[in-house]
């Protein structure tokens, strides 16, 4: 049985933790929300008071053990309390992505068999009412923000405050309302379902991942121990409540450790709100870290020359020694002094602007982060780490312990997690945190979770020599070269795309003798490089074919090959030949999706000539004619004569030599 971790504990469910916190941290802030211009705060005791009133009110309205209750809205304290209120009654909260359209949401609500819904505002009420027309299982819709809703007279429509009012009246009038409620909490155990989270799979309908109280509890306790998190942490809740990460970071871990969760005023004000609060424990997907850097670079472009010079000088210095200082490695006194000066002039103010000055631990996960970006933050002294997690694992699978940080890996198994790599290269894990089942979907459950509790992650990866897991690709995308070498296209493409000059890359190799690649240059980056270096060009095509550009891209590819050579399992997948495409892969031509995902089949077909040329070692240049759609919708053709470059491939020894030389 999973969840042995907290068995026998008096605090095996989150409502029980709330009772504990309301005593242990009675006067400590549990939640804050930027509302009406200031941070409205609730102590743990107040959260208990609010949650209790709501729970008893909900009970009175008929919410029973096992019922499902949807929660729809932005991150709001009242919605988090609703989770606990539902759990206290043994009901199952089902947070739903607030921006999904009525049809999508309707599927989830119907699938989950939702009876109650607690929603944020009029917008969501309208959606729920629309859903109710086809799915009449929703008996009660409870809304937080009353604005615009006073004329709604539909049955079962209640305001959050009025439900709480019912609860408060009962508490005041009958002596045993509270006792009955406490009894309900005591009935709860670790085996109860804590929450159902719908994952939007890449294909098909969303699946409802059922997580038990003990799974969530294990995750919360493991993560808190991993980074020594205490009740003193401040975090900000801004990622969707329906996402497992937010549920664990902003709810489970907070209840387990007693730390304070802050809700921003609006999605647009997250940066400013984070700065005000000064989060100590932070999480963000790579995109957000990237955006901060872009913002920094753009802003610094407009700074005065002296400031610019100062900025670059100190940033270079940080790149040199910042990471080592953070990792407590030996650094010379002079360098340390210069870093201190930099801290005052640049790093400190930068962290201040980012709102990350007080961060003890910051995480990135979800996708691969560019090594440059990762190191940038660490060189500023921000303890940015990576973790690997999934909804099915209640987030935590691996994480980077302090002092064992690397841009390329996702760290070691956390706590009681066991990991094995299947023969196919797929990562499999087992932990007390794994999910119970996919709701009403035994087939998928069976496919994903083995009888003895191992879960197929769907990701391909391997352990490096330090025992750190490295995720390379989706397992189903990993192919094989003819000699049996593993070929992870996305892994190679990502490595290429981390260079700012490379906008898009497409790697080929499955069922072939060696790996080749198409490369798309980034017009902005390469264009500005061209401007700085007086490279004259008239068109994208001319720039893409420019010998200097080829030289530059060749250096990047060479670098990627070196890196690959250092990694045992993918060393054979070095790029043997590449070319720079004469046109940009364009969503208008259907070559990539609007979200910038490459459409491989279409490319295989369109650029067959080029692919064939890549696999014919005698061809050094290849002519091609492609149809294109112009911005005004007209269609035309571009002709190109594309050069193909052969690359040097490295053996393991070359890499060792290089590392020694550094």
């Amino acid at each position, binding site marked *: 049985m999973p969840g042995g971790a907290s068995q026998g504990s008096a605090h095996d469910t989150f409502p029980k933790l709330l009772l504990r916190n309301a005593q242990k941290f009675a006067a400590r802030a549990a939640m804050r929300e930027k509302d009406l211009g200031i941070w409205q705060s609730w102590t743990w005791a107040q959260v208990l008071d609010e949650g209790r009133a709501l729970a008893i009110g909900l009970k009175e309205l008929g919410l029973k053990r096992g019922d499902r209750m949807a929660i729809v809205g932005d991150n709001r304290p009242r919605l988090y309390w609703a989770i606990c209120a539902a759990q206290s009654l043994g009901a199952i909260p089902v947070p739903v992505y607030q921006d999904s359209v009525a049809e999508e949401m309707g599927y989830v609500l119907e699938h989950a068999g939702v009876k109650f819904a607690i929603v944020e505002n009029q917008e969501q009420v309208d959606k729920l009412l629309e859903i109710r027309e086809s799915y009449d299982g929703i008996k009660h819709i409870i809304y937080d923000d009353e604005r615009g809703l006073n004329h709604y007279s539909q049955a079962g429509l209640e305001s959050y405050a009025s439900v709480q009012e019912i609860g408060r009246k009962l508490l005041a009038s009958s002596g045993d309302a509270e006792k009955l409620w406490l009894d309900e909490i005591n009935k709860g155990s670790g085996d109860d379902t804590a929450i159902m989270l719908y994952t939007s799979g890449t294909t098909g309908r969303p699946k409802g991942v059922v997580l038990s109280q003990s799974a969530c509890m294990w995750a919360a306790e493991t993560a808190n121990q991993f980074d020594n998190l205490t009740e003193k942490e401040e975090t900000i809740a801004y990622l969707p409540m329906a996402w497992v990460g937010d549920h664990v970071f902003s709810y489970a871990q907070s209840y387990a450790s007693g730390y304070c969760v802050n809700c921003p005023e609006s999605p647009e004000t997250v940066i400013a709100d984070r*700065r005000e*609060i*000064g989060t100590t424990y932070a999480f963000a997907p790579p995109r957000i870290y990237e955006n901060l850097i872009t913002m*920094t670079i753009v*802003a*610094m472009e407009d700074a005065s020359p002296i400031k610019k010079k100062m900025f670059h000088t100190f940033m270079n210095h940080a790149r040199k020694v910042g990471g080592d200082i953070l990792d407590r490695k030996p650094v010379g006194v002079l360098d340390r002094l210069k870093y201190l000066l930099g801290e*005052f002039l640049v790093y400190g*103010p930068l962290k201040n*602007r980012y709102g990350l000055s007080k961060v003890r631990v910051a995480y990135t996960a979800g996708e691969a982060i560019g090594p440059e970006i990762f190191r940038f933050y660490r060189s500023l002294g921000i303890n940015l780490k990576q973790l690997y997690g999934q909804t099915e694992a209640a987030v935590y699978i691996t994480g980077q312990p302090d002092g064992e940080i690397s841009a390329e890996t996702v760290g070691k198994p956390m706590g009681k997690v066991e990991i094995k790599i299947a023969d196919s290269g797929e990562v499999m894990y087992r932990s007390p945190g794994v999910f119970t089942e996919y709701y009403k979907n035994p087939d998928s459950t069976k496919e994903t979770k083995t009888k003895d509790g191992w879960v197929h992650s769907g990701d391909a990866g391997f352990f490096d020599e330090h025992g750190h897991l490295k995720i390379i690709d989706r397992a189903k995308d990993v192919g094989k070269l003819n000699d049996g070498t593993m070929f992870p296209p996305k892994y190679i493409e990502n490595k290429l795309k981390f260079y700012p000059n490379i906008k898009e890359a497409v790697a080929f190799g499955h069922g072939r003798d060696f790996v080749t690649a198409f490369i798309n240059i980034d017009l902005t980056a390469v264009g500005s490089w061209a401007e700085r270096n007086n490279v004259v060009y008239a068109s994208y095509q001319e720039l893409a074919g420019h010998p200097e550009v080829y030289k530059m891209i060749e250096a990047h590819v060479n670098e990627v090959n070196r890196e690959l050579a250092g990694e045992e399992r993918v060393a054979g997948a070095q790029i043997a030949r590449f070319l720079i495409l004469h046109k940009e892969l364009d969503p208008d031509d259907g070559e990539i999706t609007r979200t910038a995902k490459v459409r491989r089949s279409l490319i295989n077909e369109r650029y067959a000539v080029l692919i064939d040329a890549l696999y014919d070692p005698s061809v050094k240049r290849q002519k091609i004619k492609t149809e294109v759609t112009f911005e005004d919708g007209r269609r035309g053709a571009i002709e190109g004569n594309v050069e193909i470059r052969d690359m040097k491939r490295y053996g393991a020894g070359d890499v060792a030599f290089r590392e020694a030389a550094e």
Partner: protein
Amino acid sequence: MFYREVGQFKTSYKADQSIFPILQDRIGIAVILFVAFAIIPAFGSDFFLSSIMIPFLIFALATIGLNILTGYTGQLSLGTGAFMGVGAYACYKLTTFFPDVNIIIMVLLSGFFSAAVGMIFGLPSLRIKGFYLAVTTLAAQFFLEWCFIRISWLYNYNNSGAIEVPRREGFGDIVLAGAAATPATRYLVVLSIVVLMTWIASNIIRGRIGRSWMMIRDMDIAAELMGVRPLYAKLSAFAVSSFYCGVAGAMMVFFWLGAAEVESFDINHSFLYLFMAIIGGLGSLVGSFMGAAFIWILPIIIRALPETFGIDINAATVEHINFMLIGGMIIFFLIVEPHGLARLWQIAKEKLRTWPFPYT
């Protein structure tokens, strides 16, 4: 650069609306107050205290007074000097009648007399604005100057036509005013009053009354349609403004000059205060201090500079250069930064807060 605002969040409107919401500003003001109250009196020379700090503080207070009227309420006044005179003469008469009352109380009480006079001359502001109003304040200036000369009762029928500050003791037997008062004592008295009154001014300005002044200044018609009674708003501005000027005038005579005649309150002084307000920044309390420091200390530097380089320039020339410089600076500021030094300071502060970025 120095600002680290991470983690400074407000959980109440009270904290959000405090004078210095940013921690670093609170530290800064604490340091300034410490230097002003402890370091300067302990280490400042008599010359520095009497000839630089005391007049600077008094001028700053007068400029705050003018700023309340001109900067915050938008009513141009050219009669600041005369309103200060009213305070000075009132204080002189009060202390003549009640020699045993603490002179500080008398200084503060004298403000009420100038406030009353200010309100009388403020009455036309209900019907006129802009430089029309400036003319009525000129009327006040000249009429009051005439009073100071002709009504010899005001200076106790002194033959010299001047008022001379008698010796006054307070808080036990500390000499507060008169020839025997030490510069440090006088400095501390002036400083305390200025700090207290600046704090009060900032309170008023941030509250309902201050807002109604600014409403009148920015758009009097809209203000009236929002329920502001122009009579109350304007007259209260005249009263408060004149009160400040009156107290500054009384302090000028009692804690700085020691004796004064009508020349101390003439129209040229009125202009000087206007310049302090403009260069410092209309509608800014910090600016009032900056403007006063600028106009008062610049000439001192101009006088001192040639000496340090061993050049001999006669005093009259220095005076003339000073006039040209001040006139030039006024035009310069009106053209380049009509909001004065205060705005420059604000911009600098904003830069420091967004450092290293050039903007937010």
